């Protein structure tokens, strides 16, 4: 098996060191060891391979938007070694059969480890629990359950789900959106929505569900993960819940850390997303929460859509943005380059914490130390690149960052010692990856 030496990169942004990769593991740290292939890491940062708890791979059902193959290529280019594939496919991933299908597609593609998320309720309908136990004991070993795209709105169904998944150490990842308060909602309810005449998506519709769910989690002693927290009020509620000792974790997306509802003024549906882009005050609160640990993870909510679903009027457009290939750069721009976080913090929120929450921490989100699985990403923080959606590996072009210059670039990604990305390009050779 080919051995690799990453020369002179800084693990977690610390002191530069040489890292030898052999037999799928980190063989040694320190200067000197020789290898078949040497990767120059001077000036670069070495992180554990990123873990996304929130990816829409769209297969099965919407292969026109993304496939497991194209989505995991995008993930590898973004520095990921593991992604959790959301359940809102067609058919819905609410049975052992569907989650095993997605899991096998991911294994066959081989770019990252694909961990399917199981639906909480049958067909995402919010009425009856899906066979959570069957999915947990399937080959896919599902631990994260979510109706993402829809809220588990019925409080009794949510309570039962929180209780039931305790049997197999699962977690319910909630899309917090009170449905009655958000019927036909198009944009954050506030000054911009009032002026644009777009139906408002009020912050309270998220916060009411987050508040209810943390109290339910406390009552039944379960763990809860709150997806795409988007409002200052939600951050405050999660902070309060953690202070109380409630077992809650929370996610922010790159776009909610970077963009505001002002982007909607041109009515370009590339900025339509659910939950919607919020105000500058909300963005500031999310950054504070991520920096102080209230928010545990950055999840991409990578949501590819075919062109026709965005090439239309705002109200008719689908919600969602691509994000796998830009997430790390957005986190660098908003948190690292602003002095709010270190690279060790980035590793925590984009790898260690999501791996722990998704119960894949035996393989991912590990320390950079001898003997550990060689799931790694090499980042050049000094690089600058213009986002060109058409040149990305994702099948869809709905990136809200198109045309922007973002900092940082993924130079190499290693999955169990094999490079999936070298020199910023996918390693297509099956022999090298196999």
């Amino acid at each position, binding site marked *: 098996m080919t051995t690799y030496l990453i020369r002179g990169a800084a693990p977690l942004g610390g002191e530069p060191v040489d890292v030898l990769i052999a037999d799928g593991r980190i063989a040694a740290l320190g200067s000197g060891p020789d290898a078949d292939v040497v990767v120059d890491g001077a000036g670069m940062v070495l992180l554990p391979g990123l873990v996304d708890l929130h990816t829409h791979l769209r297969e099965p059902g919407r292969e026109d938007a993304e496939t497991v193959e194209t989505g995991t290529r995008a993930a590898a280019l973004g520095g990921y070694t593991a992604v959790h594939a959301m359940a809102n496919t067609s058919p819905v991933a609410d049975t052992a059969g569907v989650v095993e299908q997605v899991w096998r597609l991911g294994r066959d593609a081989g770019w990252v480890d694909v961990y399917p998320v199981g639906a909480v309720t049958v067909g995402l309908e919010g009425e009856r629990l899906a066979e959570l136990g069957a999915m947990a004991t399937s080959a896919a070993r599902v631990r994260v359950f979510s109706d993402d795209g829809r809220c588990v709105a019925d409080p009794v169904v949510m309570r039962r789900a929180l209780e039931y998944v305790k049997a197999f150490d699962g977690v319910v990842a909630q899309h917090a959106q009170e449905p009655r308060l958000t*019927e036909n909602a*198009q944009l954050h*309810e*506030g*000054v*911009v*929505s*009032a*002026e*644009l*005449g*777009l*139906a*408002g998506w*009020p912050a309270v519709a998220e916060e009411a569900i987050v508040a209810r769910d943390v109290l339910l989690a406390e009552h039944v002693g379960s763990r809860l993960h709150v997806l795409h927290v988007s409002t200052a009020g939600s951050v405050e509620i999660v902070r309060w819940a953690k202070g109380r000792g409630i077992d809650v974790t929370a996610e922010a997306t790159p776009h909610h850390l970077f963009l505001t509802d002002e982007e909607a003024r*041109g*009515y*370009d549906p590339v900025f339509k997303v659910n939950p919607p882009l919020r105000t500058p005050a909300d963005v500031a609160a999310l950054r504070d929460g991520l920096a102080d640990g209230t928010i545990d993870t950055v999840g991409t909510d990578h949501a590819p859509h075919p062109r*026709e679903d965005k*090439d*239309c*009027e*705002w*109200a*008719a457009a689908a919600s969602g943005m691509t994000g796998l290939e830009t997430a790390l750069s957005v986190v660098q721009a908003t948190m690292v380059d602003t002095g709010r976080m270190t690279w060790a913090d980035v590793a925590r929120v984009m790898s260690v914490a999501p791996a722990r929450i998704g119960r894949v921490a035996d393989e991912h989100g590990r320390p950079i130390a001898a003997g550990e699985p060689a799931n790694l990403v090499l980042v050049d923080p000094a690089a600058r690149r213009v986002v060109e959606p058409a040149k990305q590996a994702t099948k869809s072009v709905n990136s809200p960052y198109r045309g922007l210059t973002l900092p940082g670039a993924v130079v190499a990604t290693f999955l169990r010692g094999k490079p999936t990305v070298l020199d910023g390009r996918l390693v297509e050779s099956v022999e090298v990856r196999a």
Partner: protein
Amino acid sequence: MRHLLCAKDLSHDEAVLILDTAAQMAATQSREIKKLPTLRGRTVVNLFFEDSTRTRISFEAAAKRLSADVINFSAKGSSVSKGESLKDTALTLRAMGADAVVVRHPASGAPHRLAHAGWIDSAVVNAGDGTHQHPTQALLDAFTLRRHLAGGTGDLDGLHVTIVGDVLHSRVARSNVDLLGTLGAHVTLVAPPTLLPVGVEAWPCEVDYHLDSALAAGPDAVMMLRVQRERMSGAGGGFFPSPQEYSRLYGLDQRRLAALPEHAIVMHPGPMNRGLEISADAADSARSVIVEQVSNGVAVRMAVLYLLLAGTRTPAADDETKVPA
């Protein structure tokens, strides 16, 4: 001016120019021969995705009196109802060579997409989009206000206009707040709190929940907005308890009409719900300018089409493209 999408896009001077041009257009409309050769050879498409006979015929009359060719494209019964996208409809219009597209659409922002998505090169005139804007309505309202209360010239400096009704869902209210403010008028919105958008506090106007106190301030004009009866129930929950209560609290009845200053005028963009937001007494009173608003609409839309299209290309001799004095 390349497009007319939003009243906010108009500067003070642009707005006054449109009103001045509309006044010249209106003057020609009392002649025996109303038709002008100005836009001969140009094509105006009325693209209506939403029923609005009044606005459509107003634009149609305006375009025809300027000698433009008019194509009426109604979403009802066309391929749009079979699911053709806005983009494909736009590409069809481009292929047909439309010089201007007048668009009415139920989705806020659809005219912006039409103008800026790169689908067509035509000038786009917003004839009402969702709950966003209806700029030619605001222009005809400003024209009417100027004629009655400002001597028919200049702007609306110092006038006080009170707009009453369903502001939340009203593109007329949004356009008027923008345009009347630009022209120097002072606007007060009156509505139950449920029919005001969250975020209205950022608008350049006053807000009052009570019609009687707003009228006691002595406005120069009162504009009543149409209130749809279905707002009372429906999926979003009732915005007000009953039509009767709405009418009692926010309707312009005989008593409130009598409380208006002597010179004040009564306006309504139509179509009216007589007996709900406006009583027959008020609608038919001597201070009502509601019917005149309709005829002013044609002159204002002639001015808008003229300013957008004349001079962008010269289809005929110079003397034919000049504004008739």
